[in-house]
Each structure stands twice: as structure tokens, then as C-alpha cells.
């Protein structure tokens, strides 16, 4: 009976954490105004999100043992993220294009690429994350690393311009009227071999 009680206690804690993660994700969507719920609910949703975050130890100091312990458990059990896939709406698709500038003035266009389809899905997932505001501090670093991966294949390139943007797919009506995909640049960076002329630019 004792071992059953231990199992039941673990069950309670485990599902409390899963529920807290799920609610945090859901309340975050409501607070951001991404749902059909009235915007008047946003402040309440933000408060509720904070309560859920508190349950997950996220309000504690980054070096707190409780916070780290909970985070380690969440990752180990694969329950660190909520389940609002493709919800409330389908996120936009994103693309990173590199303009490869050669010494002789030639310009070629290239995108970061992988060999397999499974890895390609992961690359797309990375690009979609870059568009999120919370990953803004990482954008330049990631764009630089991706540029480096292309540079290794084209060592004689002198300068690379990385243009990141969203791919807007047409709606049903737009498609019926002949409209195709369009590209909307969000940010761009210039990288040179010696990093002398690195100039982040925005369109």
C-alpha cells in the first residue's frame, strides 16, 4: 500500500506540473490577444499565466535549486512545453535568403539547407522561432551561424547579406484570383569575411 501511495503522490505532482505548463501556454495566448476572446481578458490572463509560472518555479531566481530542479524534471519528462500546436491559428512561415556577393560583383542567392527531409523540418522550425519576439536577441547570432554554414560551401564569397522574412500564403479567395505566395522582409544583416562591415539593417 505504501508504494501505491508513493506512486499516487508522484502522479499528483507530475500532473500538476503538466497542467501548469498547459495553462501557462494557454493563458499566454489569451494575454497576447491571439485568441477570439475579448481583449478585456488579457490582464487577467497575464495574471493567471504568472500564477502558472510561479507553480513551475519560474518566478524564482535563475540560480534557485527549486527552479532548476523543476526545469530539469520538466525537460527530462518531455513536459516543458504546452500542446497548443497550430493553435489558436496557424503561425506564418519564414524564410532566410542569403545574397552572396563575390569580388567580381556577381551576386548569387542561396538558402541554408540540410540533406534530409526530417532535418529540413527542423530547420523550418528554427526559422519560425527566429520570428518570435522572445528570440530577438538570438536572431543575429543564428543568422551569422547559418551564413557561416553557407560560406563554407562558397569560400570565395566576400560579403553575405542575410534577408529574413515571412512567406505570406494566399487565402482561398486570393488563390482563386490568381494570387501566389509573397515574401515580406522582416530584417537583414550584412556579414563580411573579416566582420569589418557588419551592419545590421532593417527594411
Amino acid at each position: 500500500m505504501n508504494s501505491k501511495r508513493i506512486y499516487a503522490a508522484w502522479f499528483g505532482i507530475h500532473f500538476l506540473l503538466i497542467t501548469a505548463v498547459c495553462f501557462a501556454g494557454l493563458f499566454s495566448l489569451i494575454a497576447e490577444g491571439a485568441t477570439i476572446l475579448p481583449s478585456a481578458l488579457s490582464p487577467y490572463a497575464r495574471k493567471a499565466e504568472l500564477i502558472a509560472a510561479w507553480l513551475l518555479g519560474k518566478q524564482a531566481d535563475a540560480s534557485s535549486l527549486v527552479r532548476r530542479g523543476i526545469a530539469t524534471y520538466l525537460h527530462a519528462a518531455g513536459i516543458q512545453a504546452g500542446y497548443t500546436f497550430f493553435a489558436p491559428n496557424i503561425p506564418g512561415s519564414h524564410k532566410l535568403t542569403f545574397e552572396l556577393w563575390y569580388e567580381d560583383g556577381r551576386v548569387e542567392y542561396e538558402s541554408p539547407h540540410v540533406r534530409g527531409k526530417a532535418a529540413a523540418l527542423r530547420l523550418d522550425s528554427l526559422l519560425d522561432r527566429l520570428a518570435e519576439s522572445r528570440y530577438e536577441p538570438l536572431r543575429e547570432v543564428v543568422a551569422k551561424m547559418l551564413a557561416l554554414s553557407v560560406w563554407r560551401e562558397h569560400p570565395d564569397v566576400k560579403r553575405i547579406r542575410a534577408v529574413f522574412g515571412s512567406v505570406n500564403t494566399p487565402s482561398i479567395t486570393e488563390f482563386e484570383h490568381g494570387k501566389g505566395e509573397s515574401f515580406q522582409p522582416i530584417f537583414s544583416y550584412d556579414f563580411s569575411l573579416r566582420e569589418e562591415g557588419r551592419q545590421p539593417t532593417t527594411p
Partner: protein
Amino acid sequence: MPPLQRWGKQLMVFLFPEETDTWITVLRIGLGVQVVVYTLFLRRDWHYLFSSTGNGLVSRQLGEAITAFDSPLIPKLGWLVALGRSVNISEETALSIAWAGLLCMGFFLLLGLFCRSAGVIAWFLHLCAAESGGLLAYGADNFMTIGLFYLMLSPLPDRYSLDRRLVKTKPKNPQFLGFWRRVLQLHLCLVYFFGGLGKCLGSGWWDGTNLWRSLTRPPFNLMSPDVLIRFKYLLPGLGISICLIELGYIVFIWMKKTRFVWLVCILAMHVAIGLTMGMYLFALIMIVLNLAAFGPDFGSVSLAYRQRFHPVFTKQLSP
């Protein structure tokens, strides 16, 4: 009996139903296939995805730094690379060993050889890869971690494993077998409930817009929009159906009359996601988890039959 005590007892009965180990066989074999397919799908990009700064697509160290921000105790491939360095093994070789190890564990799970060890090592290696991938990880990785986490904690080996045939072990406690199945069942209920609720809160799932967008959005645009446009009047109905299937899962999967229908609907949804959007790994892991959690269990039927009728027969036959 006071109400609190009665509820506690009812909760324990609910959490510890008697089960056979058939569902663990489904989970073990399913996860074995999943791990093998995962490693084979990534075989050409494994080093490119997980190499250190300057050698791969995005630095592995970046992914690990993001993970370490949550907690430095989360397993990562960097640990294995560091361990390899300490015995003069290069990063490339260490990554190859991790890949080969994961593939081997997938086959071991498939066969049921060294089940517990294979489950623990597969969970660890996959977790290392998922966490080191950082920004490259997606939903399928989380569900693989969840599946492997529950598998390694579940009572192993199951009766169809090679382990059980090679070393005669005692059958596992049916109540603990039932407990771990219950955990998986309830987890899936939460997954679909929150997934469905989130979708219901988006306007695009009610008019078919989101279904259109999900099927025409790169990189999931395997179907030609010209084909899709022929079925445009079906899209709102399908969108609403997805919301209802996911939201209703938490209720209708428990009812005897609706369980089979709901399971078939959810499996069909995942098959469709796999085929029309190219998310094969995601589709496969969801199918495996659903079949293990709520799939038909003939072993359980025979157990219930034995429990109900065996005492009756023995009583009647006894002198």
C-alpha cells in the same frame, strides 16, 4: 466512511486498475520503430545538426546554452563529447557513437532485448539530442521524450519481449501495469484537451482558413492548392471536426460506446497529418502513444474473463 476517505479510495481504484502488459508491448515496439526511424531519418544530417560552432548548421553549443539557461543539469550531447575528449575520442566520433547507440537501442526495444537498459539509454540519448538541438527541436521530440520516459519507468520486460523468453521472470503486478497505462492515458487526454481548446479559441478553425493555411504553408505544402481548392467547401467542416475530436477526446475516449470511434478518428487525423503535411515522425509517435494508451487490449479482456469466471468454475468443479 467519510467522503474524503471514500474519494481517496476511489482515486486509488481509478489509478491502479488491473491490466496485462500488452499495452507495454505496443509502446515498446512502437517506440523502437520510432527511435529507429528517427535515427535513420537524421543519419545524413546528424553531424551537421549537432557539430560545434563553425562545423555545422547552427552551433550545438548555442542550443545547449539555451537549455542551460533553464537548468545546467539537463542532459546534452556536450556531456558525451566532453566524456569522449577525456579518453581521446574526437567530437565527430563521439557524435557517431551517440547516433549508433540510439539506433542500437531502437532495435533492442523492437526486439525486447535488455528492455529496461535499452529504454533508459534510448531516453537519455534522445533527450541529449533534443536538448542540444535547442531551436531545431519540435513537437515530435517532446512526445518521443514523453513516450520513452514512461516506457523506462513502466514494469518491464513484457511477456512478448526476448528478455522474458531468455530469462524467466515473474509476471509484473497487474495494478502497477494499470497505473502506468493510466498515466499515459491521462497525459494524452490533457494533450488533446489543451490542443483542442487552443484551436477552438482561434477564429480560423471555424471557417476552414486554418486548415487551408496549414496545408498550403511551406514546408507542409505537399498537396497542390489546385487539388485542395476542389474540396474548399469541406474545409470548415473538417476544421470544426478536428476541434471537436481533440476537445472531446478527454470525455469520449473513456466511454465504452464511443472509445473505438474516437480512437479511429484520432488515428485517422494523425495519419492524415503525416501523409498530407509530411510530418511522419510526429504522426508515428502520436499513433504509437494512442494505440498503447487506448488501443484494444485482448490480454485485458482475457484477464477480466479469468477473474470473473475462474472462481466460479473452480467453485463448481471443486468437490
